């Protein structure tokens, strides 16, 4: 036991020690500077991942990290716009845009923009239609256009601080009162706007080369002024400009003309950052970067943004999935070889995976400052965690590998499932007003999801019991032990389901003025309770034989899935915020698998009875 504990602690220590190494700030990469995006203040590292996932479908682009990619897009956009960053997997869209489809199907901004601009009439019409009425391809085309525009907006977000003007004509430099060879940005030019107007009005009085340069400056100013609508890059906490907590993009601050000394300082620092990036001045970069962090630290704890960046770089749930899968393979190996050491190793791996899984949940709680379950995605992560935890407690009590098997299976299954529901955007989203209460999220939501987790463990014990019983695996004592475990866990599941449902009722009473409103989600929770009560009473009163009870417990998995995901498909009620389109197919598939299992067991038992006769 001490050796196991030691291995576990070493593993955790390894992870913790790796954090500072991975977190070192590299020069010329913007990652921990905060941005306000989708209602939340987050590090640009998170935003860069969201942007890359939306366009490229991955969290990194070839050799570039998402942060490197974003930094280039902001500060060297000419280069970034040429990169084939748009991943269009649907050949119909590619053909529609008149591009060539190949196995790589990645396209750059410039070629897509050229293609899109001749199809703007169609895109505008699609944009006016009800999104629910669009076909898959139409919706993808519209999304592609939206992503293209967001990408371009980000590329132009800092155009006002980048040096776009170089005065190489002595006559022009004198006219504008700047030094020959000076590099100026949009802001510098705007300060000289009145002077430029005077010069422009007397254009014919100057030499031809000077006239050309003056006209070029005017044209560039006109082109740059188109960027004034760039609003996504909200990196300026503008207290004083507005009373609410809205942040602004540099262009917005300039447009409003109500900046504060702090916003002026920030714009100057972003200018320095742009210069440092262009001339690769590491000292200037670090100085400006730290100063930006210093100013924004008044609005968000820099440790939190730093931590979120670390959380992004680790992908703890992916590590856990890998470990659960390895453990599952090892348990399979143990079933064939019977070597106890393999089971012990797999248990250590499961425990490590569980700790990492838990760290992932804790990290999300720390970043968002709220309980672990607020979205469908988070509920899957949490149910997975609870299932593994309950299973390992069973294993600790029984030491018969069944708990380990269920733990490794549920851990990998739920974490795999979660990938489908993480979505393209930031999985750490803000909450709708009614959910914005930590007390009820921590009590009702957590309790009900613990109930879901316990139900799955009981359901899987039923699967194992039916296999043991039907194929005469192991002895009768083992069968009884599995059966008793199943009843024990189903009682725990009932406890959490009832407690969670009642707490939900009390929350509804506090928020909506009624304990029970027959809303689909409420009915779903009640259905789980009634199902478990019926099975347990049926078993106690003798209506249900053990084998029927076990079939019922297999069906519990279906009941839970319907209550958890299925009711959202109705798209009605006060809880319909969890709705996800693609869920129907998966539910049907799950139900078919579970029913097939029951039919298979019934057939196998019938066959065995015939053979015995």
């Amino acid at each position: 036991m001490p050796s196991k504990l030691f291995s576990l602690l070493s593993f955790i220590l390894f992870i913790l020690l790796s954090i500072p190494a991975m977190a070192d700030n590299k020069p010329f990469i913007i990652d921990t500077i905060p941005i306000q995006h989708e209602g939340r203040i987050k590090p640009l590292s998170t935003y860069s991942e969201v942007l890359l996932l939306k366009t490229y479908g991955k969290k990194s682009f070839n050799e570039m990290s998402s942060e490197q990619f974003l930094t280039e897009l902001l500060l060297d956009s000419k280069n970034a716009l040429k990169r084939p960053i748009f991943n269009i997997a649907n050949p119909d869209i590619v053909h529609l845009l008149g591009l060539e489809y190949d196995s790589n199907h990645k396209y750059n901004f410039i070629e897509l923009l050229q293609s899109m601009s001749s199809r703007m009439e169609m895109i505008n019409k699609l944009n006016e239609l009800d999104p629910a009425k669009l076909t898959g391809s139409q919706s993808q085309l519209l999304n592609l256009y939206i992503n293209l525009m967001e990408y371009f907006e980000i590329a132009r977000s800092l155009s006002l601080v980048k040096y776009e003007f170089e005065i190489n004509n002595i006559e022009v430099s004198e006219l504008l009162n700047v030094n020959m060879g000076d590099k100026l940005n949009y802001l510098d030019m705007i300060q000289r706007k009145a002077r430029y107007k005077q010069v422009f009005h007397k254009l014919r009085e100057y030499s031809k080369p000077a006239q050309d340069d003056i006209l070029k400056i005017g044209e560039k100013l006109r082109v740059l002024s188109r960027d004034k609508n760039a609003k996504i890059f909200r990196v300026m906490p503008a207290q004083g400009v507005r009373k609410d907590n809205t942040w602004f993009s540099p262009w917005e601050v300039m447009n409003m003309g109500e900046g504060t000394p702090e916003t002026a300082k920030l714009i100057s620092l972003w200018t320095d950052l742009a210069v440092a990036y262009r001339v690769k001045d590491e000292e200037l970069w670090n100085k400006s970067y730290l100063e930006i962090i210093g100013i924004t630290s008044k609005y968000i704890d820099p440790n939190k943004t730093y931590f979120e960046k670390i959380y992004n770089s680790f992908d703890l749930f992916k590590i856990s999935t890998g470990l659960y899968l390895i453990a599952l393979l090892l348990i399979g190996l143990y079933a064939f070889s019977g070597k106890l050491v393999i089971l012990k190793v797999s248990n250590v791996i499961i425990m490590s995976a569980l700790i990492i899984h838990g760290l992932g949940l804790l990290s999300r709680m720390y970043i968002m400052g709220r309980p672990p379950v607020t979205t469908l995605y988070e509920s899957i992560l949490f149910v997975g965690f609870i299932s593994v935890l309950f299973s390992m407690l069973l294993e600790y009590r029984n030491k018969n590998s069944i708990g380990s098997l269920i733990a490794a299976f549920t851990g990998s299954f739920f974490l795999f499932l979660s990938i489908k529901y993480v979505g393209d955007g930031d999985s750490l989203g803000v909450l709708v007003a009614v959910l914005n209460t930590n007390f009820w999220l921590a009590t009702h939501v957590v309790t009900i999801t613990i109930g879901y987790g316990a139900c799955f463990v009981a359901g899987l014990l039923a699967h194992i019991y039916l296999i043991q019983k039907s194929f005469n695996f192991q002895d009768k004592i083992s069968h009884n032990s599995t059966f008793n475990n199943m009843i024990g866990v189903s009682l725990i599941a009932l406890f959490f389901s009832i407690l969670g449902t009642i707490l939900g009722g009390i929350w509804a009473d506090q928020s909506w003025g009624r304990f029970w409103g027959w809303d689909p989600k409420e009915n779903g929770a009640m259905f789980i309770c009634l199902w478990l009560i019926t099975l347990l009473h049926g078993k106690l009163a003798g209506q249900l034989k053990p084998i029927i009870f076990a079939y019922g417990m297999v069906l519990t998995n279906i009941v839970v899935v319907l209550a958890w995901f299925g009711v959202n498909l109705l798209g009605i009620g006060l809880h319909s915020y969890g709705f996800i389109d693609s869920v129907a197919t998966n539910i049907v598939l799950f139900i078919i698998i579970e029913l097939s299992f029951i039919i298979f067991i019934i057939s196998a038992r019938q066959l065995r009875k015939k053979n015995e006769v």
Partner: protein
Amino acid sequence: MNKVLKFLARPDIFFYTLIWLMFLLVMGTVTQKTIGLYQAQERFFSSNILWLFGVLPTPGGMPTMAIVFIGLTSKLLIEEWNIRKLGTITVHIGAMLLLLGGFITGIYSQEGNMVIKEGDSAGFISDYYDVEFAISNAETGKEIFIHDFSKDKAIKLIKTDIAEFKIIQYFDNCSLLKRTGEIDENLRAMATIFSFQKAPLDKQAENNTVCIQYRIEGEEDNDGIYQIFEDMPIIQTFTKNDIKYHIEIRKKRTYLPFAIELIDFEKQSYGGINMAKSYSSDVILKDNGIEWKSLISMNEPLRYKGYVFYQSSFFVNQRGEEVTVLAVVHNIGRMFPYISSIILTLGLLIHILQSVPAMIRRRNAK
């Protein structure tokens, strides 16, 4: 007596009743998609009889839950109480109280909403579903007569002190059609412009508009056929002895012994996006000359004299004024779920502690 109780407490009755309850629950949930929450609730959960396939009478939600309640009570009465059964007995008491609370709430609770514009006061709640026929003095607002349609929809004649109203048609939901061609000379007011057409019930109960057509006779100039519907933009009037009256179909009102004034409504959004973070109404409660300032926000209701006011919704009216919508509940059975849930949870916990450790026992110990 004991025999009767034993019969009522039979586990098989309880078992099959639970299965039937689950059937009702599934049907009542799935049909919400097509008929809406209110109708599903009326048909499956609050009903005494459920007409299966329209012809087969089966127990509705109320008798089904009553059977569960009776079963639990009988079981408690005949059961031998001992420490071994402490968990299950406690659970059964908790479940009984929960059902009892549900019954009391269903019978006695009052629910509705209170709509107040910024700067205005309101002293009544409007029911969510039930409507009434109301006559009031147009000048003073004093109510002269009320008929509650939820108690009698089939009424043919409404007798009042000012006139008799013969109800020709009543629709739970209707649509308006513009009249064309020659107009019947008996039609009056809005009835000369529009006719009513019965419309199917909308699954969102609040989208249904109750309409009535009535005839007034023997009142000289007022004689004729009239039509009114819920929330008519121009209120129908009736003048007698130089007094002008308002005649309305409106959501049933319950007057409160106090009033609430809305000082300010505030919607807080997440920065940079138009998504609400919270809503709140700054109000003054006025009761017998005492003014009490209070803030009603999401998950933070105002409780006063048995009434609870919850922040439910808001809108901006045509004049650009902010209007808050408060859900108001008066429920004497409100504490039942709280008490019963504590008892239920405690009972389950005792039961689990009594039985689960033995079930999840180490094999070697066995």
